[in-house]
């Protein structure tokens, strides 16, 4: 068995990739869906095995083609990677479970097999980024996942098309900036392997190109991660994508970009650019606070359910960066564990939205008015997931916010005041979640919404499984917290 375990990092990518190549032969939509779900569940199992292996024996590495790094391409998996793999594969599997019925409403049957192919390509791309230990390899898989995501979103309504175009242009600019930055670092060090880069950057005399490189990489990844103010592609892209697709991408796509951002900034650039940490904090903290507040306020002004949740996601990305900007163990742990918890909460919320749409309700505050009467389970699921998003103790969302506040409280006096915007963000979240809940339970039903009834049982089941997951990890946050702690220490250890 040990020989099999050695190949786990690469199998994480190869299984979805291989299945993606096979699906175009399976034109029938149920077969395509079955293959995609099977591959996604295998990927999830691989992620679990990797997590077990990493907890047991520490970071793993794998030399593809048996060429030693830095001559060949190396895969590097540690606690941070394991956490993200769980998020990505988990989100994909859960979303696929409801995709079969959900997609039928939005995409013609004859085209669905192409969408499932794109889904697995996105999954393979995201996994490929997370396990990669080579900067250019990250670029290639980043583009696979981005292109596949554009395709997935384009399956939505006609409004999706301008949204996808905007996302495509901004995403490609981001990827090109990343490529540019990597090129400049390569020019100064001669290597593309991340670990090797960290070592060789220390020996570089002139830091000007490295600073420029760091700037370009950060901006490029910030575009992909929808960091305020480069987030403008996100609300429309999430809102107009097919509902099952939104569950998948809202839970994980921006987080993978943040993963790469944190890796580069902490691991590669940290020890090698003097003053880098103060520069990073000075930039990230104000920006993340503005992100949390501005995006939360924007969510208040929306009437479309998916857009409310999308702006909320931009705010959550602000929370994650706030944790990173604090540069302390607690702050970073909080930020990283928030990735996991937000994926759970947002995933469940978008699952509830998909259930609401299952019988054709318009997803606006007016459209779902009074729906709780006909769809009690779905509405209750929305409420429960909303509690997690706000961060009520006992839910997963609380854990992340707790550590963020803790991290702020431990820091310099000025940082204690920064805990206030975090709490303010949660308060605003209460308001926008309440508006939806109020409409669901107390709104008067529109006369045209005739045949609204409860969503198909397996969709409701999946929704409640996700909701219960929120409560489980809120009460027993052992695993994600441990992984996040290891990740935070690993990142900070790069700084000397």
């Amino acid at each position: 068995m040990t020989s099999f375990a050695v190949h786990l990092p690469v199998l994480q990518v190869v299984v979805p990739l291989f299945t993606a190549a096979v699906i175009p032969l399976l034109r029938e939509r149920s077969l395509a869906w079955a293959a995609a779900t099977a591959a996604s569940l295998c990927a999830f199992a691989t992620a679990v095995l990797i997590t077990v292996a990493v907890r047991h024996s520490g970071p793993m590495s794998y030399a593809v083609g048996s060429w030693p790094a830095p001559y060949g391409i190396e895969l590097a998996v540690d606690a941070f990677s394991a956490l993200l793999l769980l998020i990505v594969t988990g989100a994909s599997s859960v979303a696929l479970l409801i995709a079969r019925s959900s997609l039928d409403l939005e995409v013609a049957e004859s085209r669905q097999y192409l969408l499932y192919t794109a889904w697995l390509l996105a999954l393979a791309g995201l996994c490929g980024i997370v396990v990669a230990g080579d900067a250019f390899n990250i670029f290639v898989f980043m583009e696979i996942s981005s292109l596949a995501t554009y395709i997935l979103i384009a399956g939505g309504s006609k409004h999706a098309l301008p949204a996808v175009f905007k996302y495509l242009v901004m995403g490609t600019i981001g990827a090109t900036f990343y490529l540019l930055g990597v090129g400049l670092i390569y020019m100064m060090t001669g290597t593309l392997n991340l670990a090797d880069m960290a070592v060789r950057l220390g020996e570089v005399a002139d830091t000007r190109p490295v600073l420029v490189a760091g700037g370009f990489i950060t901006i490029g990844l910030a575009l992909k991660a929808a960091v305020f103010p480069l987030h403008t592609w996100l609300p429309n892209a999430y809102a107009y994508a097919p509902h099952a697709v939104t569950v998948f991408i809202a839970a994980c796509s921006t987080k993978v970009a943040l993963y790469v951002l944190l890796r580069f900034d902490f691991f590669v650039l940290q020890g090698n650019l003097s003053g880098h940490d103060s520069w990073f904090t000075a930039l990230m903290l104000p920006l993340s606070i503005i992100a949390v507040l501005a995006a939360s306020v924007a969510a208040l002004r929306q009437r479309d359910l998916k857009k409310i949740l999308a702006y909320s996601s931009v705010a959550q990305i602000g929370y994650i960066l706030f944790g990173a900007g604090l540069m302390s163990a607690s702050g970073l742990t909080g930020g990283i564990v928030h990735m996991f918890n937000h994926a759970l909460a947002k995933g469940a919320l978008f699952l509830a939205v998909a259930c609401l749409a299952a019988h054709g309700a318009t997803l606006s505050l007016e459209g779902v008015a009074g729906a709780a009467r006909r769809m009690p389970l779905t509405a209750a699921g929305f409420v429960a997931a909303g509690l997690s998003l706000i961060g009520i103790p006992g839910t997963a969302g609380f854990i992340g916010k707790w550590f963020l506040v803790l991290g702020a409280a431990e820091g310099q006096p000025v940082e204690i005041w920064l805990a206030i915007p975090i709490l303010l963000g949660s308060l605003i979240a209460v308001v926008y979640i309440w508006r939806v809940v109020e409409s669901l339970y107390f709104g008067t039903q529109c006369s045209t919404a005739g045949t609204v009834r409860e969503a198909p049982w397996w969709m409701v089941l999946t929704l409640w499984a996700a909701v219960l997951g929120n409560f489980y990890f809120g009460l027993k946050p052992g695993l994600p917290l441990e992984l996040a702690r290891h990740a935070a220490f690993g990142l900070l250890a790069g700084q000397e």
Partner: protein
Amino acid sequence: MTTVLCVFMLTLLVITAFGMIQARNLFSAVMLGGIYSFEMASIFFILDAADVALTEAAIGAGITTVFFLGALALTEHRERGRHGPQWLPIGVMTATGMMLIYASFDNPRIGDPNAPVHLHVAPWYLEQTPQLIDIQNIVSAILASFRGYDTLGELFVIFTAGIGVLFILSAPAPQDRKVSERLMNAEGLRHHLVPRVVGQLLVPFIVLFGLYVQFHGDYGPGGGFQAGALISAGLILYALLRGEIAALRAVPIWFLRMLIVSGALLYTTVGIAGMLLGGSFLDYSVLSNDPVAGQHLGILLVEVGVGLTVTGVLLSIFHAFAARGQ
């Protein structure tokens, strides 16, 4: 001499870039884009990047221009709206450009053999390739073997693009759309004598050259991507001359789908075979008793896989655009 040529071509490049951006007529802009790609390919060649020059010429100047023309045929020919220069973007761009130029003063001078890029990984490739892989084109050795995992990713990028275009252009067209002029119609250029005669003479040579490039990638510039682009360029020329219907009779859509899938599966299977035979993923040394022979076999198979998928995807995209116009 190289410097003079380089400076000249680079200046030409900037002028072409300005022209491309300013041109009101989109057809002119796309043509200038093709010229821009060609100039870029020449610069690559001057800078000793032969493989890249070939790829940029085939894909940038050739295939990209065809795709743009296809899209133009389905949309509009002129850019509307008159907008003066926008000062805020110009300001931001100039500032960023100044910053880049300022940073460039620390860059290694072009051609400096002691630059960091030439000191670390590169000499290892140059020295070790004859012993470990024993093929002459070092770029192919790195592309297909040392960094073969990246190339697998690249193949799947083009695979994704093919799936995407097929998906997006399979949506039902709205019924009341205006029919715009079509550059490609069902009859092709059948009534134009000179293109038809000369073009049909060229098509088999283009395809043959593509096959040559495919299998000669080990010994000279070439490989799967260039070959795929060349072969599909030849077949696109055939479609333009004889019309869509004839082209689809010669190379049907189901065949293209098979090409796309089999290329991707071939590459991935070679990788998995490496794992099953005791090595790691994409380890070719275990594919045969002699590691070097194994490397040769592995490189041959993966390059063929790349060529198959690239041909299939580029042709499928072309046909998807062409079919939309009918």
